[in-house]
C-alpha cells in the first residue's frame, strides 16, 4: 500500500521522507514542500535530495506520455504484477479501463 496510500515507508530506508517529498512536489503547499525538502537534505544529504527531485520530476512527465498516447502495459509486466496491482488499488484508477490494465 506504500505507493497507493502514501502512509508508510515500505520498509525502505527513509521511505517516509521520500513519500512526503513526492506528495509535496505534486501538491500546492509551499511550506510543506520546503519542509519535505529540508528533511531529505538533513537526513540523506544534498545529492540525495537533488536525485529525488530528478526522479519525481521525470515520472511526473513520463506518466503524461503514457496516459496521453494510450500505450498499454506490456503483457509480461501485466501478468507478473497482476496480484499486487489489484492489492494496492491500481486497477481502480480511472485509466485502468482505458489501457486494459
Amino acid at each position, binding site marked *: 500500500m*506504500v*505507493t*497507493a496510500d*502514501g502512509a508508510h515507508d*515500505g520498509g*525502505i*530506508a*527513509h*521511505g517516509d521522507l*521520500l*513519500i512526503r*517529498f*513526492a*506528495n509535496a*512536489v*505534486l501538491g500546492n503547499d509551499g511550506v510543506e*514542500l*520546503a519542509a519535505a*525538502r529540508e528533511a531529505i*537534505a538533513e537526513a*540523506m*544529504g*544534498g*545529492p*540525495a*535530495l*537533488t*536525485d*529525488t*527531485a*530528478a*526522479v*519525481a*520530476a*521525470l*515520472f*511526473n*512527465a*513520463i*506518466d*503524461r*506520455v*503514457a*496516459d*496521453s*498516447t*494510450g*500505450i*498499454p*502495459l*506490456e503483457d509480461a509486466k501485466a501478468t507478473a504484477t497482476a496480484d499486487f496491482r489489484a492489492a494496492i488499488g*491500481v*486497477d481502480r*484508477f*480511472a*485509466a*485502468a479501463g*482505458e*489501457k486494459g*490494465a
Partner: protein
Amino acid sequence: MTEISYQQLAWPVRDEVTQAHQRSWRRLARPGSWLTGAERLAVAAEARHALDCPLCQRRKDALSPRIVEGEHDSLGALSAAEVEQIHHIRTDPGRLTRDWYEGLRQAGIGEERYVETVGVIANTVAIDTFCKGLGLPPWPLPEAEPGEPSRRRPAAASHRLAWVPTLAPEDAVGTDDADLYAGRPTAAHIYQAMSLVPEEVKGFFDLVLNQYLPPQAMADFDNEYRAINHAQIELVAGRISALNQCVY
C-alpha cells in the same frame, strides 16, 4: 538565450542532469518535426498556464471531467483544440480517454502534431517539476529559432499498439528510423509511445537517462548509480505515478 544552471543551489545537481536540461531547452526553441519553434514554445507556455485555469480546476474536482463545461483560460496563441489537449494532459492526465483523443482528432489536430505536443509538454513538466521540487522558479522560456518543421513521418508507423500510431522496433529495421531502436528487436511500450515523431523520443529519453536511470542500470541491483538506491528510486517513481493515477 537562457542557459540553465543549478550552481546557485545549496545542494549539488549532477552535471549530466544540468546538461540534459540545457539540451532540452535548446530543442524547445528549435523547429521540430511538426511544430515551429514558436509553436513549441507556445505549447510550453500554455502547459504552464494550465495550472491556473479555473475550468481545469473545476474539472479536476469533478467526479467526471466531462460533466463540467466552459472555456479554458488560455494565452490565445493556439487553437481551442490544442489548448484542450495541453490543459487536460497537464492538469488531469489520469482521466484521459481514447474518446477524448478521438474528439481532438475530429476537431482537426493531426496525430503527428498531437504527439509532438505531448513531447513538448513532457519536457516542460520534467524540468519545471524539478525546479519546483528544489524551490526554484521555472526557467524563462527561450527565444524561438526561425525555420520550418521537417514534417517527416516514419513510413512504417502503424496503429497496432496505442491510441496514436507508433513505429514498432521490427518495422524500423532497414528504414531511415532504424537508429531509434539501435537494432534492438523489442522496446518498452513507453519508449515506443512517441515514436511517430522520433525526435521527441530521442529528446525526452535524454531526460529519462539522466534524471532516472539508463537501461543497463535499471535491473543492475548489484550496483547503485545515484545518491538514492534502486528501491528508493522506485518508491518515489511509484508514489508519483500513484498520485497521477497512471496505470502504466
